[in-house]
């Protein structure tokens, strides 16, 4: 078990390093931030001076090594735009993103879990068809379109909810619901197919042959096994949403990490881009690590294989 944890930790560090490296070099392709930061018509000397100040005149490999050394210490440099510590700028946006992501995941799990179970248990009935049609629609509907429609209807026409922004529960409802539609649709579809597969298993017949009550068979034999792939998908979705749901955050003017990084890319704010992407990579890797541990809890076969 300790060996497993150490190995996974090593893999995780390697993955984060890979992402950070790629982002560093891709960011340099974006172009020259110095030209953007100075007012139009600034002289070539001014631009050169600024580049030297930002350390952008040094050889690329040297910049990279310096970046890595500092990044390991948590120092991603000063934001060109905000004039403050880049990681600080990113972390300030984390609560907004996390609130939105976790609300959407929780909603999606509940709705998707119920819908998927109903579809599996009512196989061949009209209700399965209805649920699965909605799930397919939910997965296929573009998030920006759904978001805009919801804003138009509940925000503009009915005036019940704010059209965007951040701060109160009413601000959270529309963007969280928008994301939850996709999340619940994905979970419902996966859970249904997973349950249908489990229902065919011999041990379900055994459970029924024991005369167990219907809900015992469902909870402890069907759902308990069908859950395992759903955990993976939930983790991946959580990772994605915690990385900032760029489209939703933009449509609803939600001050999250996704929107921040898009703005940073437009402004060629290298330190913020690098800090943001690194944070996302770390979150992703961390979640995957937790899921692997959770897998061992859920599936004794995996536990003893370690």
């Amino acid at each position: 078990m300790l060996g497993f944890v150490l190995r996974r930790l090593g893999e995780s560090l390697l993955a984060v390093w890979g992402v950070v490296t790629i982002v560093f070099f891709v960011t340099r392709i974006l172009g020259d931030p110095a030209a953007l930061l100075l007012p139009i018509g600034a002289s070539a000397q001014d631009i050169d001076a600024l580049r030297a100040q930002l350390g952008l005149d040094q050889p690329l490999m040297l910049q990279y090594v310096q970046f890595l050394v500092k990044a390991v210490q948590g120092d991603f440099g000063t934001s060109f735009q905000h004039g403050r510590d880049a990681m600080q700028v990113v972390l300030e946006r984390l609560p907004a993103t996390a609130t939105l992501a976790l609300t959407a995941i929780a909603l999606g799990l509940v709705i998707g879990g119920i819908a998927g179970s109903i579809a599996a248990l009512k196989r061949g009935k009209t209700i399965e068809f209805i649920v699965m049609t909605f799930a397919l629609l939910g997965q296929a509907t573009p998030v920006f379109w759904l978001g805009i429609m919801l804003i138009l209807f509940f925000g503009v026409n009915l005036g019940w909810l704010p059209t965007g922004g951040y701060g109160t529960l009413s601000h959270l409802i529309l963007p969280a619901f928008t994301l939850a539609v996709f999340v619940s649709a994905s979970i419902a579809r996966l859970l249904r197919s997973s349950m249908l597969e489990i229902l065919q298993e011999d041990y379900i017949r055994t459970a029924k042959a024991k005369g167990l009550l219907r809900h015992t068979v469902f909870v402890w034999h069907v759902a308990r096994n069908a859950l395992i792939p759903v955990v993976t998908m939930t983790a991946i979705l959580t990772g994605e949403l915690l990385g900032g749901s760029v489209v939703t955050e933009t449509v609803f003017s939600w001050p999250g990490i996704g929107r921040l990084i898009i703005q940073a890319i437009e402004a060629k704010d290298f330190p913020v881009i690098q800090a943001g992407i690194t944070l996302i990579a770390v979150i992703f890797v961390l979640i995957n690590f937790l899921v692997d541990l959770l897998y061992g809890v859920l599936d004794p076969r995996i536990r003893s294989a370690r």
Partner: protein
Amino acid sequence: MAPLLDIRNLTVEFDTPEGTVHAVNSLSYSVEAGETLGIVGESGSGKSVHILAMMGLLPMPPGRIVSGEAWFDGQNLMDMSDRELRAVRGGQIGMVFQDPMSSLNPVLTVGRQLREVLVRHTDLTGTKLRARMIELLEIVGIPHPEARLDQYPHEFSGGMRQRVMIAIGMACNPRLLVADEATTALDVTVQAQILDLVRQLKQDFGTTVLWITHDMGVVAELADTIQVMYGGRIMERGPVSPVFRTPHSAYTHGLLKSLPDEGARAQRRLYQINGSPPNMANPPKGDPFAPRNPYATERCLNEVPPLRDVGDVPGHKVAAWYDLPALLAQENEVAK
């Protein structure tokens, strides 16, 4: 005395893309209390399906119970609600299925899966419950039962898992134990141990046993009565030794010839019944075995033979238009 189990006119079909599969065709038989019935027959003869149908475990669709009754202890299982049936399953009727590899839930401990059935059908709790679980594992010959209860199925060998299945099947002292190829996946020594175990159970508790198998040898060892099935029908049935000595169905005769006898055991050359099992989506019109039967008459091909008494032995019945002992005697004459 009324039989413990009485199946009457059970017909089960499956709706498949290839058409309707006639899996079980007006099957009728009964099992007396304390009797051990061995059911044999090739793959697809309806052995498992008729049991599943009787127990309310048939997947429907594609399965369909067209007609039939299954009287158990004076109650028709077919008329019972799902709820009533659940009270009988696992309690009064214990079941053991084939393939121990997939019949246990991989994510729950063996103890938990054993406890479930006890909690459902008995009043045992606390230390008494645990004591009974340990006792059950001891009865089926699992060493270190106390430690084994907290282990998962993948930590057990195939033979040990099959023992767990048997422990689950007999946990609540059922009046009827149904075992569907419970030893098929196991090697010969483990199989022998399990057969011993079942014999012990019968002795100690007077359990009625319905043992489904492909293996005539197992039937000879364990059963009082043998029932040979083919194409969802009974071909022959009767007390084990008369049926083994004087089979009246050509199918039984074939199965017995394929059993290696003492002399041939060294060579292990098995007699094969020619041809393949019937396609039950398009079954033969008459006797289902007729197309593969060298003794078949014109009538066999056109008319389904009823199950009739053979005559000399009470309870020995056959479904055949031909007189097999006479035909075999004739063959012997010619050979001489």
